[in-house]
């Protein structure tokens, strides 16, 4: 083969350079379309802020989230009568600063989102690739299993799974990841089915690519767009579902400052101390909203039909 | 009095990159019983003028003209309601993609009858009869059977016949055909063109044929307007155009026909651009 001649080596270098430039151009074009959507950019900014707050929580939070101030039970937010400057958003029933708990809670929410999406994405991609590529009995079996999972309402299935595994944050995350799995599997499989008969795949096969290479290096990169959009959607769903499980007492357990768990603890005080209920929910809403804004922006930017060049 | 008279028509679209001039001061005149062909390449704006007459342009379009009259009525000042009484009845239009131009959820009989329902006061039985009559007039075989068919069950040629039937349903004074044969097979193209010419001659209506195909122009037109990038390049009767083209662009178009390919290289429009100054 001509691999080692200087001419071939120079051509190889040029090819890699062009490939890098092409990738850079693609990313720049993507950013151009994404940034046109002001909501998406705002969502991204909020999300980045959230990540920073979560990472630097010990520095940002005014108090420790678990410390109970015995003399300050159910203190209102600072702008209301009876509020204290030390507790900007007030305290909960056992005297813990709500703002600090919210800040530390951000860690849990982001952690949940990342773990769940990673598991669901990786699992979903692998299973979907296998199903779409293999077809036949394997495909049918996998899709029936996915149908079974989808036959149950997601929250119910997650609840049942947590009941089996035992309440707790880790189990809640696993349960939610399993419940979100089918969406990724179906997406990947659909994309694989659409792509596998395309000419470039046939060409790669003829050139001698093996199964793994075909699946992961040839087909997968072309299926990424809908998967990315689904990943952001699942990120926000994961946060909502984990909060729901926490609210029902099956997720993160007290005294963990997870936002849903905080809402569960606060429920009996809704008429007496509305701030204990309002702020954790607001935190969930803002986080999920930011992610959904980014997701919408991603979908618009990645959808080839909408390309306006 | 001409059937349709347009003077100095300008159409601008608002786009993300600023205003785009689709039409820059074009005149059109059509008399009753006349076939006018508007010919040009894609992007010349040939459809835009007719869409403006029909009121089918989006809100981002700004339409200005010195004169825009149909049978002496000023189209610019018509209210939406008044315009809807004219469109589909006195002026009708058929489009390029026949199957896509029909609603996939309703039968063709239903869609044909709808035109009659809106513009005439025929009762249900009379409408039904007229629909069958129209289908026969446009050459659809077995009208009684086809009347309850859906667009996706018919071929492109048949769907275009349905579109033509819809367009002539209320005996229009002017029919606008926007590239009616471009999406069809060559053999079907001839049938549709012959049908259009036949209907035009039988009813004496005006026909505007928008096309990029000089062959279609030769087959059907009485007069021709040659358009390029929103401006009129030449206007003359069809025989003079082919025998003695005046404008450089017309010469370029005619030279670019495959029939005129003599020698090694097929001429392109841009070959003539410098000389013609367009």
């Amino acid at each position, binding site marked *: 083969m001509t691999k080692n001649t200087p001419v071939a080596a120079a051509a190889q270098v040029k090819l890699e350079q062009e490939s890098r430039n092409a990738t850079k151009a693609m990313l720049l074009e993507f950013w151009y379309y994404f940034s046109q959507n002001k*909501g998406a950019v705002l969502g991204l900014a909020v999300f980045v802020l959230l990540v920073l707050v979560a990472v630097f929580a010990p520095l940002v939070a005014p108090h420790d989230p678990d410390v109970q101030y015995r003399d300050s039970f159910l203190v209102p937010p600072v702008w209301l009568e009876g509020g204290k400057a030390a507790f900007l958003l007030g305290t909960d029933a056992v005297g813990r600063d709500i703002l600090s708990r919210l800040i530390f809670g951000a860690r849990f929410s982001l952690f949940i989102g990342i773990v769940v999406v990673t598991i669901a994405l990786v699992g979903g991609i692998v299973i979907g690739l296998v199903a779409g590529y293999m077809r036949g009995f394997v495909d049918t079996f996998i899709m*029936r299993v996915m*149908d*079974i999972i*989808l*036959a*149950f*309402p*997601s*929250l*119910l299935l997650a*609840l*049942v799974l947590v009941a*089996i595994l*035992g309440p707790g944050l880790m189990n809640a995350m696993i349960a939610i990841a399993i419940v979100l799995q089918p969406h990724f599997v179906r997406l990947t499989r659909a994309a694989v089915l659409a792509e596998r008969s395309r000419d470039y795949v046939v060409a790669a096969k003829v050139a001698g690519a093996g199964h793994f290479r075909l699946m992961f290096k040839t087909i997968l990169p072309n299926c990424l767009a809908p998967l990315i959009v689904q990943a952001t959607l699942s990120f*926000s769903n994961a946060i*909502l579902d984990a*909060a*729901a499980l926490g*609210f*029902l*007492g099956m997720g993160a357990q007290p005294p963990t400052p997870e936002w*849903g768990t905080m*809402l569960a603890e606060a429920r009996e005080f*809704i008429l007496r101390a*509305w701030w204990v*209920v309002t702020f*954790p*929910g607001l935190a*969930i*809403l803002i986080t*999920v*909203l930011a992610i*959904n*804004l980014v997701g919408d922006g991603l979908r618009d930017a990645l959808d080839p039909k909408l390309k306006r060049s | 009095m001409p059937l349709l008279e347009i003077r100095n028509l300008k159409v601008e679209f608002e786009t993300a990159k600023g205003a785009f001039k689709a039409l820059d001061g074009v005149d059109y005149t059509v008399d009753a019983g006349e076939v006018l062909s508007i010919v040009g390449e894609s992007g010349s704006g040939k459809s835009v003028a007719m869409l403006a007459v029909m009121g089918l342009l989006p809100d981002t379009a700004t339409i200005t003209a010195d004169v825009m009259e149909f049978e002496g009525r000023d189209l610019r000042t018509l209210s939406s309601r008044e315009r*809807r*009484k*004219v*469109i*589909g*009845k006195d002026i009708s*239009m058929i*489009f390029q993609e026949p199957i*896509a131009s029909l*609603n996939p*959820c*309703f039968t063709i009989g*239903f869609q044909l*009858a*709808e*035109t009659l329902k*809106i*513009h005439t006061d025929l009762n*249900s039985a009379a409408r039904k009869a007229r629909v069958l009559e129209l289908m026969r007039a446009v050459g659809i075989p077995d009208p009684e059977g086809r009347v*309850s*068919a*859906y667009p*996706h*069950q018919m071929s492109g040629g048949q769907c275009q016949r349905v579109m033509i039937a*819809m367009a002539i349903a209320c005996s229009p004074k002017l029919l606008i055909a926007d590239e009616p044969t471009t999406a069809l097979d060559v053999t079907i193209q001839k049938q549709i063109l012959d049908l259009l010419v036949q209907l035009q001659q039988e009813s004496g209506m005006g026909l505007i044929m928008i096309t990029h195909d000089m062959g279609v122009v030769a087959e059907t037109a009485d007069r021709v307007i040659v358009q390029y990038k929103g401006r009129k390049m030449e206007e003359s009767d069809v025989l003079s155009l082919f025998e003695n083209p005046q404008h450089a662009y017309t010469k370029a178009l005619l030279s670019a026909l495959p029939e005129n390919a003599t020698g090694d290289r097929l001429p392109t429009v841009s070959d003539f651009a410098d000389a013609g100054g367009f």
Partner: protein
Amino acid sequence: MINAGAFVYSTGDHPAVSWQDPPVRHIRTHDMFRILFSRLGLLIPTFFGVTLVAFSFIRLLPGDPLDLLAGERGIDPERKAQLMAQMGFDRPLWEQYLDYLLNIFQGDLGTSFASKKPVLDEFLTLFPATAELALCAIIIAVCLGIPAGIFAAVKRGSVADQAIMGTALVGYSMPIFWWGLLLIILFSGILQWTPVSGRISLMFFFPQVTGFMLIDSLLSGEKGAFLSAVRHLILPSVVLATIPLAVIARQTRSAMLEVLGEDYVRTARAKGLPPFRVIGFHALRNALIPVITTIGLQVGVLLAGAILTETIFSWPGIGKWLVDSISRRDYFVVQGGLLLIAGIIMLVNLIVDLLYGLINPRIRHN
């Protein structure tokens, strides 16, 4: 599970009906049965899979099933051996599964420990409450969501469009259990317009004819009963409707936008049809096709949401029943509940599939 493709029909004559009417009459029952049977073919293995999941539930729980069922009091070994034989826990798993299946087909889903009543009976008693809630929610979602979506599509890019879509986005980013609590604070706590829990004020007592409080209160003829039922129903319905409303609005808008750019809409305008007919009839008819599928899928969302909504509003439906049973370790209830709910969802999906085949002529004729 909504897989609306690959139905093959023979082209045949259409029956002689009035073709001027919209096309619903053209369906041949033969076609619909064909869809039904092909969907059932897929559903049957799924259903058995679901029964397997429900069956495995108790057996997957950590610990011995009988110890779990006995709870904290514990159980003495003799009695345990007796119960094991009685309940069939000592037999091979596949035999137990077959027994379980046989019982299902006879309508025996076990007995609740909390209420000592058969699971199926309790389900049927409580289901109307959830059904009433879900129906109200879906009606609200459809009646508000579709018009909102149409309006946003027609006025694309305007302030109204952005406002509607922004609201929809907030709607489905919201944790609905929090939303419900907020509304309780506002409407029940501060304004005192609505009650906090239950289906009807405690002072009313009348026989349950249909199980639907709205209907029963009207039938009872008691003064103020219907109004009380409405006041109890409105807040939970709104909360439950929030996510489907947002999803339907967004989906309608995107479907409408796609349809409004199609050639046949231009043809409809070129025919001189009034805008209301162009949009509301020609465009909407096509746009509704994907939206119907979405509405069908929302049933699963509604049932999941019902779990949370019923918990917050103490609404005596199956959502609350299931959650309480999980906490109470009332496992037969959970097992039966899983099966029944999954069954309902599969049934609804089947109906949606059939409906999709009905309204989309291209699928009908392939």
